[in-house]
């Protein structure tokens, strides 16, 4: 793994006497390869390597008796600090009904995450209403109704002859009748380049002024994670991210890419198909995983 490789490299280099800036290049190359193998975006890696290089040629490494370990520590710190930060709580400021809007590419896990959020919020004493606003995918509304049933959360009775903006505003108007104070809106998956569908999300946003607009993204996403996140952000000004399917063996570089380009917190990770499989995001754990 990366730590072993770096310890090896720096042990050999230090054995030849004083460590030089030129020597550090070999270590940086290994770090770069590890990050690219973890699916971190090419440009994000470039910037990150430069930040690491600046620290690696400083006294903390050059003057150290264990330069390899110092470099490992620097990489771990840089990744953790890039992915961490404040704002991991959901925004429940202002008055109810609070509104969470879930958006993302096709198949990323929005509908399932809506069910998970409903479960999670219930345990926090909130009264969520699940709102199916995907009228395009076959049986999407049925899917959310079944999930709502599994977690005993009411589901707004959308039908496929309604349009998503109308569903959203009707749900908000009627939230009180369901005894609910929080709306979780599930939307249809869409390509970030589909202007009509991005306009539709923008319309939902201006109608409802959601407290949270969360990008639901797949942990195994490759290089396009940056383009997708950037574009969704440009249209909607996202408030956070949910990273799904994290319990697999994907290295999860998408987490780093997305955080780097959005500078918005990853609020939750999905770690399974069941509705209790939602966890807070741990930047340090994901940093180790990305390092490999």
């Amino acid at each position, binding site marked *: 793994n990366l730590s072993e490789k770096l310890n090896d490299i720096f042990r050999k280099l230090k054995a030849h006497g004083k460590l030089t800036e030129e020597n550090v290049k070999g270590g940086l190359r290994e770090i770069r390869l590890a990050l690219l193998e973890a699916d971190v975006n090419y440009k994000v890696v470039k910037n990150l390597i430069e930040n690491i290089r600046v620290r690696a040629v400083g006294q903390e490494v050059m003057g150290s008796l264990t330069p390899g370990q110092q470099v490992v520590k620097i990489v771990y710190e840089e990744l953790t600090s890039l992915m961490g930060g404040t704002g991991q709580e959901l925004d429940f400021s202002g008055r109810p009904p609070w509104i969470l809007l879930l958006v993302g590419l096709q*198949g990323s*896990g929005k509908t399932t995450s809506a069910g998970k959020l409903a479960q999670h919020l219930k345990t926090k004493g909130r009264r969520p209403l699940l709102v199916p606003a995907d009228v395009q995918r076959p049986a999407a509304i049925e*899917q959310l109704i079944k999930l709502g049933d599994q977690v005993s959360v009411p589901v707004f009775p959308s039908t496929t002859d309604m349009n998503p903006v109308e569903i959203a505003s009707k749900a908000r108007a009627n939230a009180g009748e369901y005894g609910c104070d929080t709306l979780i809106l599930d939307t249809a998956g869409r390509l970030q380049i589909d202007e009509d569908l991005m306009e539709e999300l923008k319309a939902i946003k201006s109608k409802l002024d959601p407290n949270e607009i969360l990008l639901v993204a*797949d942990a*195994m996403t*490759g290089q396009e994670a940056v383009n997708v996140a950037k574009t969704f952000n440009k249209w909607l000004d996202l408030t956070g991210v949910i990273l799904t399917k994290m319990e697999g063996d994907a290295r999860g570089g998408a987490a780093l890419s997305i955080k780097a380009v959005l500078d918005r917190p990853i609020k939750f990770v999905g770690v399974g198909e069941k509705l209790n499989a939602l966890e807070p995001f741990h930047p340090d754990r994901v940093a180790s995983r990305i390092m490999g």
Partner: protein
Amino acid sequence: VMGVKEIGDDVLEDLEEILITSDLGVQTTKTLIKIISDKVARRELNSPDRLKEVLREEILKILSSPQQAPQKQVRPLVILVVGVNGVGKTTTIAKLARRFISQGQKVMLVAADTFRAAAVEQLQIWSERVGADIVKQQTGADPSAVVFDALHAAQARNTDIVIIDTAGRLHTKVNLMEELKKIKRISGREMTGAPHEVLLVLDSTTGQNAVSQAKLFNEAVGVTQLAMTKLDGTAKGGILVAIAHDLNLPIRYIGLGEQMDDLTDFEVEPFVEALFG
């Protein structure tokens, strides 16, 4: 550049960026850059344009190498569709059914995803839209039992093609992969030789994890064909090059949208064109 110090380093770096950002992955990119830089070292290549041409040729070679076995002449032909969660299996099945039906074939869909909420309903709607038969049971039923019943019915009903929809599953979940092996075994028990095709569906937005997916699904149930979906998006799907190189699995279908007609056959030339586009 990937551990190679040659003349034309910045040209190689540009090529490396194209390959990595197209999701070819580190290993395949290293392999290709090495081939190119070896040719440069042997003075077989000296112009940057020629470098790019040779790179295309090498990728074409890799993608053209896996040979699709000829279509089995058997009735019903049984296709088992597998893959991780959310990649587009169910939608791809609808597209395949639509194509076979338009060719005059009688198609039966098998709702063997008995786990996910409304998975059966989703396939049911597609079967009605494309005009296929469907065999299903209640959620929570044993998927192998659904498949067993379906194959029995298909053989009795003069069906030409049976397509089995399975639940999405991460390749690292041993119990779920065992379930898939069982579905395959049970198919073979009800009809010798079934499933005749095992179609692994991959999502073009997936990075290097797709190689791990292909490897483990292949080890578990023997993948005979690949489909890659969502190529109507901005991802290049370059990981197909890595998979062709490492596992030699034939790439059959490309998904280009969410409607029943959005399926095309994979063709090497247009795919490589789009990689460098």
